[in-house]
């Protein structure tokens, strides 16, 4: 194989940078047109309800089951560590803070990217490959308004709600393990939690995180579907990209948001 010259490598790097900036610009315009562009569609609310069902309600099972197990595991791990210091009564506080600040928004966003995000990409990609998007355009209906916008809003609304549900069932799973199984005193479990959890610092910050994740994950998922190559291989590549890019974006943004919210600098 011919070795690449330094100039070739620089050109390759430049080409990659240009392509990345182009995609970012295109995805930005795509978002602006879908959310703010003129020409709404009649029956938009019904479309939103339909998407809230397929994006949100159908993700409920995986969120609830995962939430319960993660709460239970947190409780078990927390109890075994805290018991060494005689502080096992603080397990409620530990479970609640971990879920509200970190695991609730992050794990929900990761699960959402895997379940709903990949489905959104595949669905829109399939519509593109079967010319349904072209067909809408030629009927005089903007697919950005009819297909993309309801899915974006459904994602923006669903994920924060799912994250809250995840937190609630996680705390319930944790309490079940701690109180009913490990014998932590119920009063101190709940009282410690109530004393240490701040609505603005913990609950609200967690909700802000999940809103940011909802925006990024849904944007990536819908754009990847709309921008994919309309072949079976292209759709499969776009679906993979959705899960990988969303997961990396969630984890990266989580660090930035945590630093801003709890960094003390």
């Amino acid at each position, binding site marked *: 194989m011919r070795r690449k010259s330094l100039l070739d490598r620089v050109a390759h790097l430049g080409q990659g940078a240009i392509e990345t900036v182009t995609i970012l610009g295109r995805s930005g315009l795509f978002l602006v047109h879908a959310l703010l562009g003129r020409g709404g569609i009649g*029956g938009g609310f019904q479309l939103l309800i339909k998407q809230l069902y397929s994006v949100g309600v159908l993700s409920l099972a995986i969120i609830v089951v995962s939430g319960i197990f993660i709460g239970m595991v947190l409780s078990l791990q927390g109890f075994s560590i805290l018991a060494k210091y005689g502080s096992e009564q603080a397990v409620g506080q530990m479970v609640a803070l971990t879920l509200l600040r970190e695991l609730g928004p992050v794990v929900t966003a990761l699960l959402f990217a895997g379940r709903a995000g990949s489905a959104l990409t595949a669905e829109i990609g399939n519509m593109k490959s*079967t010319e*349904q998007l*072209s067909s809408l*355009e*030629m*009927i*005089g209906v*903007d697919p950005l308004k009819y297909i993309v916008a309801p899915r974006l809003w459904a994602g923006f609304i669903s994920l924060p709600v799912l994250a809250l549900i995840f937190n609630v069932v996680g705390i319930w799973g944790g309490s079940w393990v701690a109180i009913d199984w490990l014998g932590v005193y119920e009063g101190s479990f709940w009282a410690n939690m109530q004393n240490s959890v701040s609505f603005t610092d913990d609950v609200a910050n967690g909700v802000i995180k999940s809103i940011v994740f909802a925006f990024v994950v849904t944007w990536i998922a819908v754009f990847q579907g709309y921008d994919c190559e309309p072949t079976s291989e292209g759709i499969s590549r776009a679906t993979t990209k959705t899960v990988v890019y969303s997961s990396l974006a969630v984890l990266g943004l989580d660090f930035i948001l945590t630093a801003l919210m709890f960094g003390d600098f």
Partner: protein
Amino acid sequence: MSADNAYAIELKGVSFKRGTRSIFNNVDIQIPRGKVTGIMGPSGSGKTTLLRLMGAQLRPSNGEVWVNGQNLPKLSRSDLFDARKQMGVLFQSGALFTDLDVFENVAFPLRVHTELPEEMIRDIVLLKLQAVGLRGAIELMPDELSGGMKRRVALARAIALDPQVLMYDEPFVGQDPIAMGVLVRLIRLLNDALGITSVVVSHDLAETASIADFLYVVGDGQVLGQGTPQDLMNSDNPRLRQFMTGDPDGPVPFHYPAPDFREDLLGKR
């Protein structure tokens, strides 16, 4: 304004590139109003691209695309969507909405663009489906239809809003002889009955020539020839004659460019 009202669609000096590859170079095409015009050419000659340029789903790198007196590439996004209400397209795959049944597919343009009462929408849908012979399939889902039926339902949907221009993208591909005969008849019948302008993009010579009033043959990024089917059959242009008669060899060679066969087999000596 468009120069002449006799033409429903006019492409003036249109060039189109994909990346650095030129697909069309300074092409002029005029589609007469109220007629069936066939656009033909070998596979890969850019016929579907031409259709997408006419629907402004692609923007030309140069030139003007006038449809019903509007230069489509110059329109804003929302004006363009308004202009498309006057156009219907039958896509190669039919492109039916897979989550809607036959009735809802045909009713879709009426629901989004009109505020007609439900009874009237039902009547119009029944009329359109009757025109394509599928009134009995009203409750079927797209995956329960054959390829030919899908195209007929898509045709009913394309005429739901009574467009002025109807474009067909390879309507005969993959159809059995009966379905093909039905489509050929429908295209001509709808054109004459509704008084619309039809553009049929196809490489099926016999079928297209049998219904077209006027033909364009495109290839090598240009218009190779234009005229009535009979004019083109009698053309002296060798490239055109090869296409019209279906000769396997000619200006378009049978062999893809390759090194010398003898050298390839025996190696250089």
